[in-house]
């Protein structure tokens, strides 16, 4: 029982960051129809920025988090302006290939700048775990979960309560009609990509002190983000949150009770299984035929 609760706690913490990664990716796909292969690199970028600011420049950790997220937003906006805006209207395979190219270049750049040796971000919290009943959790992990939940709530508010969110939802439904209603689609696309990238970057920055930071850390994360998004249905934001937690629980319990070696395979097996049963994801939004 104690072991079970411990797994649940671990899965909740992991699920929070997975959800952050998932909503960013699904938002970009839902609105822009772009399968974003730079998502994992933005996550890595966020982690390195946290390392640079908090580790090298000895900034306050919390300030570093905010700055890393903002830098992620800026990099995302740049990628959208330079690579995706000229390709608007291109088919999904074309943008996918460009994003793969961009992902390769970004990862190699990170390797070039930071070298292959893993870095670690200083942990601002005490390392002694907090013990709550039978469960023990490092304070940093609790902080990560808290921030993730706060961000998820803030994101929900942004999408459902603000003018920007309304414009995004309108664009999501039907870009042409949204444009007629006065939504600036170009700006909306840039904002979407920047926001999604910012979420990936802050997820990387948040996990920096827990895991180590290295250039290819985004590879597996990106693939997992795809898994999360597929579970929830491409373009389905609540689905991505649920998908994030589902994946975390499956990984945690799969690793705990089945085989830890296959921990990272769980997500992919889950995707394959889900798509065989429901070819459009668990909570697929209705798509137009054609």
């Amino acid at each position, binding site marked *: 029982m104690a072991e079970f609760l411990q797994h649940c706690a671990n899965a909740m913490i992991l699920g929070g960051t997975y959800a952050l990664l998932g909503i960013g990716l699904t938002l970009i*796909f839902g609105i822009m129809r772009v*399968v974003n292969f730079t998502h994992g690199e933005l996550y890595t970028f966020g982690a390195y920025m946290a390392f640079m600011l908090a580790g090298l420049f000895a900034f306050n950790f919390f300030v570093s988090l905010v700055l890393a997220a903002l830098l992620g937003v800026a990099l995302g906006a740049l990628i959208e302006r330079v*690579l995706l805006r*000229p*390709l608007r209207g291109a088919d*999904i*395979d*074309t943008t*996918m*290939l*460009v994003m*793969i*190219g*961009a*992902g*390769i*270049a*970004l*990862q*190699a*750049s990170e*390797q*070039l700048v930071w070298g292959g040796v893993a870095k670690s971000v200083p942990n601002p919290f005490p390392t002694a775990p907090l013990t709550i009943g039978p469960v023990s959790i490092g304070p940093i992990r609790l902080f990560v979960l808290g921030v993730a939940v706060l961000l998820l709530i803030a994101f929900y508010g942004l999408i459902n309560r603000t003018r920007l969110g309304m414009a995004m939802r309108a664009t999501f439904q039907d870009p042409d009609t949204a444009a007629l209603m006065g939504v600036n689609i170009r700006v909306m696309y840039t904002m979407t990509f920047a926001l999604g990238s910012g979420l990936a970057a802050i997820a990387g920055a948040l996990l920096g002190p827990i895991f180590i930071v290295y250039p290819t850390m985004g*590879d597996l994360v990106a*693939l997992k983000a*795809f*898994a999360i998004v*597929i579970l929830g249905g*491409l373009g389905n934001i609540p689905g991505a949150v649920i998908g994030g937690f589902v994946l975390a629980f499956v990984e945690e319990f799969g690793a705990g009770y089945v*085989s830890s*070696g*296959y921990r*990272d*395979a769980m*997500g*992919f*097996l889950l*995707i*394959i299984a889900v*798509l*065989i049963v429901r*070819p*459009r*994801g668990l909570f697929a939004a209705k798509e137009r035929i054609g």
Partner: protein
Amino acid sequence: MTQQLLPWLFLAFMATLPLWMTDLYVLHVLVSTGIFIIGAMSLNLLLGYTGQLSLGHIAFFGIGAYTSALLSLGFDLDLGGAEPFVVGPQPVWIAFTGGVLMAAAFGGLIGKLAFRVRGAYFVIVTISFAQVMRMVALNWVDLTEGPMALTGIPPLSVWLPGEGVIGLYDKLSNYLLVLGVAVVCYVVIRHLVDSRVGRAMVALRENEPLARSVGIDVTRYLVIATVIAAGMAGAAGGLYAHYVRIVDPDVFLFIYTVTMVIMVITGGKGTLAGPIVGGLLFGALPEVLREVARPEVQWIVYGIAMIVIVFFLPQGIVPAAGRLWERLRPRRPAPGGTALRAGKETSA
């Protein structure tokens, strides 16, 4: 006329190349590039002719490599029963064939899946498939040795009159072997795409509802295409395993699929020569860059090259060169479609 001669001239050049090119390092680069070109040609059948973007193609390569390696080394499987299931070392060509068949069987599964799971979902399923394969190779240590890799894989062999069966250890014979397999794959693809079967595949790419409305069973032809493509990728994997004689889980890395995709797109998807041209280019590029740049910079160049090609040469080099050629020769416009151009047999 020239277009018909070109493949023969190219083959003659490649076949006689070792006569004057004796640098072993160059031969080694050509062998590895050739193996990748076979992979790229097989990917082209899916990506270029049926129009399905599969980003897990390296999985078939890896399955071919592991199966062929394991069969030639022998293995025992503990399936929970009292007696483990033991397979002794098999002759290399039987092992190689086993690798091709195993990869083709997985190709059939993926092909069936492709019609349930479409577009971006299919892309992600194929990536996941390759990842799961990598995890299996890493973790099923009893079978695959995990990260320690399978080592001591015997080379492929030939029987020569007077000399008996000899193992192909050296670069030159491996070069000729890879060239031979590549030619077989090229001919197979060429025959296929210029046939009723190939037209059904192209119809799926061009206009799926219309294809179905004229009675083409698109699912069936997509499965056929994935089986053949996967089998060829498996053959490339087998060549690789018996050439480098060590196989580790990294053969399943996503970056290798990406390399094949770049080769196909750069050369021109849906053309016979495309993967060869793109493959030679991207096989040579790292070697050229190696002299002047660090590996990271090479990869940056790779990534940027991919973007630049998609932006400025979306059809690839071969169709662009074809158009240039026709513009330079102001004769009567030669009839010939992009889709099946290189496979045409019409005697003009």
